[in-house]
């Protein structure tokens, strides 16, 4: 197993070589093709995953089939940690490969065993989960308090500042808790108002101050 791949994982970045050598024995490398399912909501939790490369989408399905994408995660992130701590042991969400994905998987029992044996690992997991929780709080805030127009503006600013790949209108809709037509309509409005510009496969934001005002509901 390549040491450099281990160092790509955020959760392992500050862990000593000694502890890393123990963790390494519990990791198994796997790859997934674009679009394939990695795990399903409500299935028993069997593995924890650490993304070496590629991107995954974490999503929930409403009874009417509508998807809510909770997060798009990239290289270095870890997922399916929460159910490993619960007695019910079921996965909380669906995860699929948004691109070709390479990851490490760790058996759930090995994970809990290593948490008990390695305080350094436990602290790294707690730190990582605290940061993930803060991100989820932001998402809940966005979905519950902001209009679709505000959500789209906020999303565009975040993507322009820290791009995480290319997005279709449908992917934006699923990420923002709305439908594709609505995203298309708001993007056209922004274009007509001169706030964004379409240049072939690029959406270019013209003015940060205006977009921030829209995101805050002031425009």
């Amino acid at each position, binding site marked *: 197993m390549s040491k450099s791949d281990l160092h790509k994982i955020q959760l392992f970045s500050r862990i000593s070589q000694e502890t890393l050598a123990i963790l390494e024995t519990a990791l198994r490398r796997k790859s997934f093709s674009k679009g394939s399912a990695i795990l399903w909501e409500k299935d028993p939790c069997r593995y924890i995953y650490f993304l070496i490369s590629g991107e995954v989408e974490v999503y929930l399905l409403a009874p009417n089939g509508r998807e809510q994408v909770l997060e798009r995660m990239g290289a270095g992130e870890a997922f399916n940690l929460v159910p490993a701590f619960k007695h019910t042991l079921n996965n909380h969400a669906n995860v699929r490969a948004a691109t070709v994905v390479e990851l490490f998987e760790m058996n759930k029992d090995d994970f809990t065993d290593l948490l008990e044996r390695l305080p350094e690992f436990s602290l790294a997991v707690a730190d990582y989960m605290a940061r993930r929780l803060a991100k989820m709080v932001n998402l809940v805030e966005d979905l519950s308090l902001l209009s679709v127009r505000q959500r789209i503006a906020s999303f565009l600013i975040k993507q322009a500042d820290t*791009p995480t790949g290319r997005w279709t*209108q*449908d992917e934006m809709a699923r990420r923002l808790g709305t439908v594709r037509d609505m995203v298309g309509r708001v993007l056209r409005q922004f274009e007509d108002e001169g706030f964004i510009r*379409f240049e072939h496969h*690029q959406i270019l934001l013209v003015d940060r101050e205006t977009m921030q005002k829209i995101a805050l509901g002031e425009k």
Partner: protein
Amino acid sequence: MSDLELPKINQKKCIACGACVEACPNQVLELVEEVLSFVRPQDCTYCALCEESCPQGAISCSYEIGWA
């Protein structure tokens, strides 16, 4: 167009209804023997009207997002 970028068509979802053919302002798309095809790809401006017109969600345009 020097950097030819075309919308993606999911032929499994496409029902060959022709809505996108009607919507395209540059006649880039046509149904060729009931299969949606790019007949004038060089004229595509990636305006996404085909995507917006598709009732099946069979066409998608992906974008990079950045500052002008």
